């Protein structure tokens, strides 16, 4: 049960739904529940709860896959929560039930592969026996590496100098970091600069355990001093923490999919970053007002949600 000392599941999931709806592109479609008549899907992209704050990332994942002829179905929303949140709050029975629901949901689509974009989801699914499921579950970076030859056919030069931020706390994160480098190294003209201070803490950067401010400052100061155009990050959570540094250091923050999309000439916008760089919750509420009105959201409630999700 929720206690006074922690936010409720309801308040967290309502923030995911509320802010996710405000930031989602009009053409972004994903399933919260699998329709009874849904076709079997060879490839399922699992959209983690917090990734709803950065919807351009799953949108790009889908467009990149389409570029190489891979259709996918996206399952997302709190309805497909991996259970990480319940794990975090030590509700292990709820965690077990939640992750089982998610994995069985994937199984019903009879996919060959389920790919996630979140390292927390990867961890929870692995811990709960996703390896025994009749589908393969991997981080999406594995899939992009698997299809790198197909991606290369479409790649165009990206004339940027970048520093890559990464995490190495366990074998899975090390593999993601290697995958990111493999993908980025394949992009013509992209210059990847050697940096000493780009290693992030833990599994990823996030609200509860962010990269320490001093380390973050050091990473961006180094990137600026190296003449980098951008710091490129592997995860949506890192992207959320670091976007604001663009204001202070003038070094752009990009998710790795952004760079890949640039190379594949896939246009995109970044609603989370656009809002975060306004650097003021009032300005964000004004910018989002048409959609707040469209969805009929209570302004006081949505303002608190925006503050939590965008200015964390």
């Amino acid at each position, binding site marked *: *049960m*929720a206690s006074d000392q922690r936010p*409720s*599941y*309801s308040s*967290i*999931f*309502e923030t995911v*739904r509320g802010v996710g709806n405000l930031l989602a592109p009009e053409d972004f479609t994903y399933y919260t*529940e699998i329709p009874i008549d849904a076709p079997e899907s060879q490839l399922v992209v699992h959209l983690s709860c917090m990734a709803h704050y950065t919807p351009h990332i799953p949108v790009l994942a889908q467009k990149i896959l389409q570029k190489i002829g891979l259709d996918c179905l996206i399952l997302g*929303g*709190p*309805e497909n*929560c991996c259970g990480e949140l*319940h794990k975090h709050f030590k*509700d292990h029975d*709820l965690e077990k*039930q*939640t992750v089982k*629901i998610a994995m069985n949901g994937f199984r019903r689509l009879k996919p060959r592969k389920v790919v996630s974009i979140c390292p927390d989801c990867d961890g929870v699914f692995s811990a709960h026996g996703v390896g025994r499921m009749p589908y393969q579950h991997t981080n999406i970076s594995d899939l992009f590496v698997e299809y790198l030859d197909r991606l290369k056919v479409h790649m165009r030069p990206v004339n940027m100098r970048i520093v890559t931020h990464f995490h190495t706390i366990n074998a899975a994160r090390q593999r993601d970091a290697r995958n990111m480098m493999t993908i980025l190294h394949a992009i013509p003209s992209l210059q990847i600069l050697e940096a000493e201070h780009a290693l992030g803490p833990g599994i990823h950067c996030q609200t509860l355990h962010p990269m320490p401010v001093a380390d973050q400052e050091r990473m961006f100061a180094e990137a600026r001093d190296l003449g980098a155009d951008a710091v490129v990050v592997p995860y949506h959570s890192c992207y959320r923490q670091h976007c604001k540094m663009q204001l202070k250091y003038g070094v752009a923050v990009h998710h790795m999919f952004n760079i890949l999309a640039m190379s594949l000439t896939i246009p995109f916008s970044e609603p989370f970053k656009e809002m975060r760089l306004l650097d003021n919750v009032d300005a964000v509420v004004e910018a989002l007002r048409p959609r707040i009105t469209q969805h009929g959201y209570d302004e006081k409630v949505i303002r608190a949600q925006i503050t939590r999700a965008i200015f964390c």
Partner: protein
Amino acid sequence: MAESWIGVGPEDKFVDGLHTVAVGRRNIVVARLKGRLFAFDALCPHAQGPMERSETEGAIVSCPLHAWRFDLEAGGKELHGYRGLQVHEVKVNDGQVFLAIAS
């Protein structure tokens, strides 16, 4: 709505909060919220989450698994437009709580 009333215990047993009672093969949550008694299915219609562990906000109960939210004062309507929660009629007679279990 069924007209067969089933006794589930004395009213003072159902203090503020959520209580699970077995009625035949079904588990039913009897909730006292804002001083009022409500009764509803113990399984969330989404994925059979444990509604006896709902988070409550007034007469709104929220499944702890994925936060489907149900307004008990609106017949169990789900507030995002999903499937509603089955609610049951409650009455108190001579200090005893009775439920009419909907099929």
